[in-house]
């Protein structure tokens, strides 16, 4: 009868992926992260996490990313110059069937008894946690490690980078060249070509602490370090961008940007990067004891979101985001100020100097439209 038949896309056959705008998307392993950056991480793109000062939380993000790959039987490439990549893969969280809720749910039954003022009854419930009811990706339990045999059963390769005097075409520090050639050789394989319809799989590349002092060492040896500082890193990121485009590979890179001497580097890097977020931990800062932030472990900033294969980039529900690390999971939530319950002579807020930047205090010239 009708002549129009929709051709079914075989790429959906890869486990743990979905197709949006003709582009394969994978989960980062954290449902709330997938939600705030769009639907997930698009293949052929670079995702950058600017590390917190102690790199505690960025390490957890990498583990989630790899664990999701193991759970979906994706191929993995783990690279690091600072520590043994096998150690990272040894501590991956275990997937669970039910979302991990640490809170005691008995409170919920009491809520029904409470009568809400009629004018608020029609309001929708404020949803501060994201992606809790999504079916995309897995839920993980951070308190248990995945079985070593299960990781070994996966197609996982490690790249421990050590500096030597080998070939370093185009780069001063041959770590970059080694990593690039490793990635290039892996990505060139037929199964990672995005146009290949059969036997294709997703390659998850994780690079831990790219741009740490080991990577920058050669830059500082120069006579005029300020002129070339970070040049290798910027070059590496652009080369990686050209390699990954139109492949089924995705790079998840953490960068200790707080260690850079030159703050310009990050802005230059972000041009080559597709999506980027920044973790700002409260540990060791004055915000740790600030009552405004007592429910959270740090702030979560979205620094770049780009639109691949379409014109409209994703707009997250809010830019005021915070994260907390529970016993079993890592969640990103909308930042809420706590209710002021105590009566005190002096209002506590008056003492707080570090209120979030985006909350209130607008002058007319700051309004965009």
């Amino acid at each position, binding site marked *: 009868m009708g002549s129009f038949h929709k051709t079914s896309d075989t790429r959906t056959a890869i486990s743990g992926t979905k197709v949006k705008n003709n582009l394969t998307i994978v989960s980062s392993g954290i449902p709330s992260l997938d939600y705030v950056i769009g639907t997930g991480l698009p293949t*052929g793109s670079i995702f950058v996490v600017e590390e917190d000062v102690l790199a505690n939380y960025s390490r957890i993000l990498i583990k989630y990313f790899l664990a999701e790959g193991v759970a979906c039987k994706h191929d993995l490439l783990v690279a690091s110059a600072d520590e043994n990549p096998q150690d990272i893969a040894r501590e991956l969280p275990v997937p669970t069937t039910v979302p991990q809720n640490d809170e005691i749910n008995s409170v919920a039954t009491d809520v029904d008894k409470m009568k809400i003022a009629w004018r608020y009854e029609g309001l929708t419930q404020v949803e501060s946690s994201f992606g809790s009811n999504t079916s995309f990706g897995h839920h993980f339990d951070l308190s248990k490690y995945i079985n070593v045999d299960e990781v070994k059963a996966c197609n996982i390769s490690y790249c421990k980078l050590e500096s030597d005097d080998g070939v370093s*075409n185009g780069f001063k520090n041959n770590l970059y060249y080694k990593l690039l050639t490793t990635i290039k050789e892996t990505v060139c394989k037929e199964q990672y070509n995005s146009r290949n319809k059969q036997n294709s799989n997703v390659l998850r590349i994780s690079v831990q602490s790219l741009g740490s002092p080991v990577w920058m060492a050669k830059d500082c040896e120069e006579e005029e370090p300020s002129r070339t500082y970070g040049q290798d890193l910027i070059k590496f990121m*652009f080369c990686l961008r050209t390699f990954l485009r139109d492949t089924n590979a995705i790079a998840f890179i953490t960068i200790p940007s707080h260690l850079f001497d030159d703050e310009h580097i990050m802005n230059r890097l972000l*041009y*080559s990067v597709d999506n980027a977020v920044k973790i700002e931990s409260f540990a060791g800062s004055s915000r740790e004891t600030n009552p405004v932030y007592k429910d959270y472990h740090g702030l979560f900033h979205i620094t770049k979101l*780009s639109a691949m294969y*379409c*014109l409209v*980039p994703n707009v997250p529900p809010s830019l005021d985001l915070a994260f907390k690390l529970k016993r079993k999971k890592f969640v990103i939530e909308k930042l809420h100020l706590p209710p002021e319950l105590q009566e005190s002579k002096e209002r506590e807020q008056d003492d707080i100097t570090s209120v979030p930047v985006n909350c209130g205090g607008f002058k007319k010239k700051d309004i965009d*439209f």
Partner: protein
Amino acid sequence: MKFSFTSAIRMSSDIIALLQLDRTLSSRVVVVKEINRCDSSFVTSCVLNHCIKKKAALCVLSTHNSFQHYQNVGLRMNYNLQKHVDSGLVDFHSLGDHCVHNLLSENSLPELFHKVRERITSMQQKNDEVNVIMDGVTHLFDLNYSVQQINRFCKELIELVTGCNNSFIVLHCHKANEDDVTSVMSNLLCHKAHTVLEVENLPSGLSADVSGHLTIKYPSLKFDTDHLYTMDMKMSRYLFKLFDRGVKLFAPGTV
């Protein structure tokens, strides 16, 4: 279907009219300056749409986005880029891939203009008018080309394109910082341009209603008879919103 077709045309015509590419004027240089991490690839897609509808030959030199990106965006805007690449109307040259490949295999950066000139001149032999779009001029700095090399490349490219009748060249330049080489280059290019389009993300964050600010300047009109006695030509500011099928412009305050 009819509705989507007409709306797709309208959605890119705003930008085209703003850049004055719909008028038959002499050859022109358009510089698109990306500020505050804004992505200006929508301008490329609109210009591609315009050229394909007008059947004007076009050469795309790309370092920032892939062919697949423009192809997929194009399908939504109602043109098939692949079909026109096959027919020879559009030539897509991935300059970034070429440079990176050369760098890693031969340890040297290739001469930029040589290969580009070959491609453009071969198109110019077949067509009267050959327009050029280059996205991501700034990526050449990532590869460690010097300001001098890139400036010479842009100068030669502009001379080659504007030497041909009624052709235009669109150069996209990203300004990463206020005081570094990317800013210097974008200012240099703006100095050469007839039309400067600045696209900027909203400084206060992201909005679902507006994608960003857009500022247009016409430095070339300064010597027009109409503007001969104006000291400082006013620039026009707009807000823009991106859609799957194109972009819409608003006057400030009308959203």
